[in-house]
């Protein structure tokens, strides 16, 4: 079949599954089957785009002109395929995991859950394949809407409050993004994403450039968890764990940083960024976020909240790497998108398994659980190691490139930040591991065994994947090659 | 100064009527008086139009014996007069609707005084 239609099909597959999911609400197995089927088909479709992406080909499909001179465009360039791969791939794992979690936890409203999930994934793939800012905004807002039912899933006071906070932050962000896009359009006459930026030949004053950049940053920074726009993330932990896992460690937040990279690399371009000192703004914000988030992680006793702050910190690793404006740094950032995803999703899966199996949410209750849930904790160890940047887990690779990128640019401070943060990571993960393995568990652990295989298999697989990617970043999907190619296209535009 | 007033007395008259009408609508408590105010207001506008139609030495635009129509300066401008016929009809229709509403209000609440009315409605 024609390659040009694949991006569209990839977006539509899970949307098409939604009616089936809704209709099979009385037959859970059938309903889950649709979800998994859609996920697998989506992943395979994206996979077929991989060879052309590796060659640097761009597959473009103009859907329709949604505003004069502004078409709705799906463009599967290397960066888009990269993001789409990780999102759709991890969705399959999350779907299996969800089955175990939702059933084990006897969650209600599962149909709404699975249907919303499917729409979210459509939106995420749409974001990945957006060819211009307008398309991006449309899918971005769709993602906000589709994730809302998931955030408020529990319908408790906390859940609804979390949902309101989430909406306030993300809707405001959407509006700022629209303002930024409008101004950009009136200055440049286009909203296309082009490697190297679209501000060529446009007169920009310092104030104008900074204002537009701040508006953009407000827009994508909320989802990317840049402080001080991050506080919706810890609150959103009120959602069920698979939601936190996929959406808030992979899809939503990664859409945010994906947006940051699109803005920096494909709208502004490295020269414009440097010319007006915009990258310095970014660097300061990201650096502060990394340190503060890591410190805040220490203070959390609730496991998911600790993971949430850890996510905020790691997202800003990516943003920090972008702000360095070096090729190596960018490679590190892009790879961290996928590597952090695999590691964080593992950790969230573990947290969920612990909650369903042992009904424990707080770290102080986790004494001795390694004896009862060995596989889960083993995966946890792997994930933590990677986030701290310890080889052979993949986190080490991306961190290495980030640090090298900073050194290349002659900037010591980011390196110091990375090192300190690495230590802090160890600092907030190690106690968990210590408690699980080396403290004696209480009597309530009697009679419990490992969590359901639906949960354990996915979480262990992502952990293993993390190691494999660490040993060979190009394994299976050539993540490293793609990252390199994207970075070079931004810094050496044609 | 006097010239300014005397030369434009039609306009001043109009303004006075408009003011009286507005006063009636705003200040009077009885709903019927408000309607009267409205009527005066509309009359002001109508009279303004008619005053505009005036020409020196002309007569009303009704065909008179001995005054050829082709000699336009004989007759006042007929157009505003006809327009105002329409406007008067519109005014009458408005009055009709207004009174229908008032009858309805009276039947419901038994009063046409605005203050009592607001009390009864609350």
């Amino acid at each position, binding site marked *: 079949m024609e390659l040009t239609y694949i991006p569209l099909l990839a977006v539509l597959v899970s949307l098409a599954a939604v009616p089936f999911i809704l209709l099979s609400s009385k037959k859970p197995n059938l309903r889950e089957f649709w979800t998994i089927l859609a996920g697998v088909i989506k992943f395979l479709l994206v996979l077929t785009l991989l060879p052309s992406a590796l060659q640097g080909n761009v597959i473009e499909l103009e859907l*329709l*002109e*949604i*505003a*004069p001179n502004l078409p709705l465009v799906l463009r599967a360039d290397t960066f888009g395929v990269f993001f789409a791969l990780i999102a759709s791939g991890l969705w399959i794992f999350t779907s299996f995991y969800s089955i175990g979690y939702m059933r084990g936890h006897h969650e209600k409203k599962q149909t709404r859950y699975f249907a919303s999930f499917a729409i979210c994934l459509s939106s995420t793939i749409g974001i990945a394949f957006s060819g211009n800012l307008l398309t991006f*905004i*449309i899918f971005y*807002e*769709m993602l*906000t*809407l589709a994730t809302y039912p998931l955030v*408020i899933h529990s*319908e*408790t*006071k906390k859940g*609804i409050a979390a*949902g*309101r906070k989430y*909406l*306030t932050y993300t*809707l*405001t962000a*959407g*509006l*700022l993004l*629209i*303002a930024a896009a*409008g*101004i950009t*359009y*009136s200055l440049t006459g286009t909203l296309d994403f082009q490697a190297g930026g679209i501000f060529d030949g446009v007169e920009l004053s310092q104030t104008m450039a900074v204002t537009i950049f701040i508006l953009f940053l407000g827009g994508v920074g909320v989802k990317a968890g840049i402080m001080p726009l991050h506080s919706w993330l810890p609150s959103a932990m009120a959602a069920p764990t698979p939601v936190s896992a996929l959406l808030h460690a992979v899809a939503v937040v990664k859409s945010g940083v994906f947006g940051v990279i699109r803005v920096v690399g494909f709208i502004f371009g490295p020269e414009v960024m440097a010319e007006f000192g915009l990258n310095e703004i970014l660097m300061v914000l990201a650096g502060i976020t990394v340190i503060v988030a890591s410190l805040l992680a220490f203070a959390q006793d609730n496991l998911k909240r600790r993971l949430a702050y850890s996510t905020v910190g790691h997202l800003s690793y990516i943003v920090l790497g972008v702000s360095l404006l070096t090729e190596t740094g960018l490679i590190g950032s892009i790879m961290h998108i996928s590597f952090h995803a695999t590691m964080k999703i593992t950790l969230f899966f573990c947290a969920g398994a612990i909650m369903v199996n042992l009904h424990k949410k707080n770290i102080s209750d986790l004494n001795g659980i390694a004896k009862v849930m060995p596989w889960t904790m083993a995966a946890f160890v792997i994930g933590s190691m990677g986030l701290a940047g310890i080889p052979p887990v993949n986190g080490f690779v991306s961190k290495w490139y980030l640090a090298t990128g900073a050194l290349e640019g002659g900037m010591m401070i980011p390196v110091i930040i990375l090192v300190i943060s690495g230590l802090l990571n160890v600092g907030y993960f190690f106690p968990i591991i210590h408690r699980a393995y080396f403290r004696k568990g209480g009597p309530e652990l009697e009679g419990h065994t490992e969590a359901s295989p639906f949960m354990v298999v996915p979480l262990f697989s992502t952990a293993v994947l993390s190691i494999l990617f660490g040993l060979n970043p190009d394994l299976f999907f050539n993540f490293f090659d793609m990252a390199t190619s994207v970075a070079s296209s931004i810094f050496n535009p044609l | 100064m006097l010239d300014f007033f005397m030369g434009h007395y039609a306009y001043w008259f109009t303004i006075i009527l408009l003011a009286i009408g*507005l006063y009636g*609508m705003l200040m009077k408590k009885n*709903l019927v008086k*408000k*309607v009267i105010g*409205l009527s005066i*207001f*509309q009359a002001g*506008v109508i009279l*303004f*139009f008619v005053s*505009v139609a005036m020409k020196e030495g002309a007569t009303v635009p009704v065909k008179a014996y001995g005054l050829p129509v082709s000699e336009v300066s004989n007759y006042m401008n007929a157009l*505003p007069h006809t*327009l105002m016929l*329409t*406007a008067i009809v*519109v005014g009458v*229709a*408005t009055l009709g*609707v*207004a009174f*229908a*509403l*008032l009858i*309805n*209000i009276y039947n*419901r609440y038994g009063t046409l005084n605005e203050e009592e*009315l607001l009390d009864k*409605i609350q």
Partner: protein
Amino acid sequence: MIGSEIPALIPVTYIFFAILIPVIGLWKREITWHLSLLGTGIATFFSAWGFMHLIQTGETIRYFFGGWMPPVGIEFVYDGLAAFIVLVINAIAFLVLIHSKEISKVEFPGKKMAYYTVSMLLMLGFNGMVLTGDLFNLYVFLEISSLSSYALIAIGEKRAPYSAFRYLIIGTVGGSFYLLGVGFLYTVTGTLNIIDMHEMLPMVIGHSSVIAALILMIVGVGVKAALFPLHGWLPDSYTFASSTSSALIAPIGTKVAAYILFRIILFLFGVELIDEQLPVTTIIGIFAGIGILYGSIMAIAQSELKKMLAYSSVSQIGYIIMGISLANPFGFIGAVLHILNHAMMKALLFLVSGSLRLKEGHSLITKFDNSYRKKYPWTMAAFTTAAISMVGLPPLAGFFSKWYLALGTIENSNWLLLAVILISSLLNAVYFFRIIEKVYLNNPEAESPEESEVVEKDEVGFSMMFPMAVMAIGLLLVGIFNAYIVNIIFNMFPAGF
């Protein structure tokens, strides 16, 4: 070929049915609804035909009544913009009247014949206002539609006649101001024909009475359009009127008045002409901006659905008028598109409120609960669609009109108005999502599990559901295909853009 007769056929259809309904209604009570549908249906058909014809030939039709040539005779001018507006208002009226079948049994039983006759007159007035090319004729149609709307508003619950009376006073004063303005213009130019006057105005623009006339006309029409601060009649009138009346007057009436403002400011006078003398567009823009924020804030404070929608309408009209005040192509496109979008959204919302009132007996937001989700799934789905579109989230229609308006403000470097658009979108989200939360989510305050209460699906009948569904789908389609619509609107620009 009746193509050239369309401008006359549309109002004549309404006159015909306005006479037919009472005549037949006295004999056979039950057909009045069907006749009203037939009337609006035929008018919509003519409007659509005329619109298609216009797109293909691109010729403006000038219909001279009685064969009298302008500027002596009265003419109807059927250009692109007029054709578009006429199509929109007739289509919406058609859908609203379909919905009124059930409502009429509850909200105004026994008065159906009178109600539908007056609705025909109402539509006559609106169509006439849009189509006419003569300023005085416009006054006549303005008054026809106003009188009909006073009557329709009075047919409601307890407080309705008083609200209608207040509206009558304010509305008639507005109409008289407009008439006075026309009088000034006539005195100075000697003509009443819009096209003719447009050519004459540059010659007399220095005259103070012309500016006075402009202000009088804007104030007069502004009352009808509910331009802040002339909007005072709106909340009470919409709240207490019957749901069908609100659904007819809110989306259509204020839009037609806004369209008249369009004509006066952009077509009759032309922007450069006005702004030389007095920064009218700036002033209107400021008032529109204040109106947008005021309407949104007041809407948040309401506990009753219809009143909330009324204040929301004040806010949305502000968008349209702001688009006019920007006086650049994007502003124009945004305003015209928003006329279409808001007409659909508001009509849909009022229809939903009508359906809810029918079923529940009230429309108090505080009493909404999540049984609605099970009882009226499709109605609430339509509501949600309209809400999302009002907030301005893509890909629904509401996003695109806001996008063009935003581009318009950026083009003028009017950052203040841009901020107003953005902030008001957020405020819209607040008052709509509040309702969505109540309807879809379990109330966390409730003590006993509500699952045990078995709630039956009690969806409204087809005659009510059909128009709501059509409008909701329409919002999606207009959103996705808005580029086509925009291209058509491009051709409607007045000369000089």
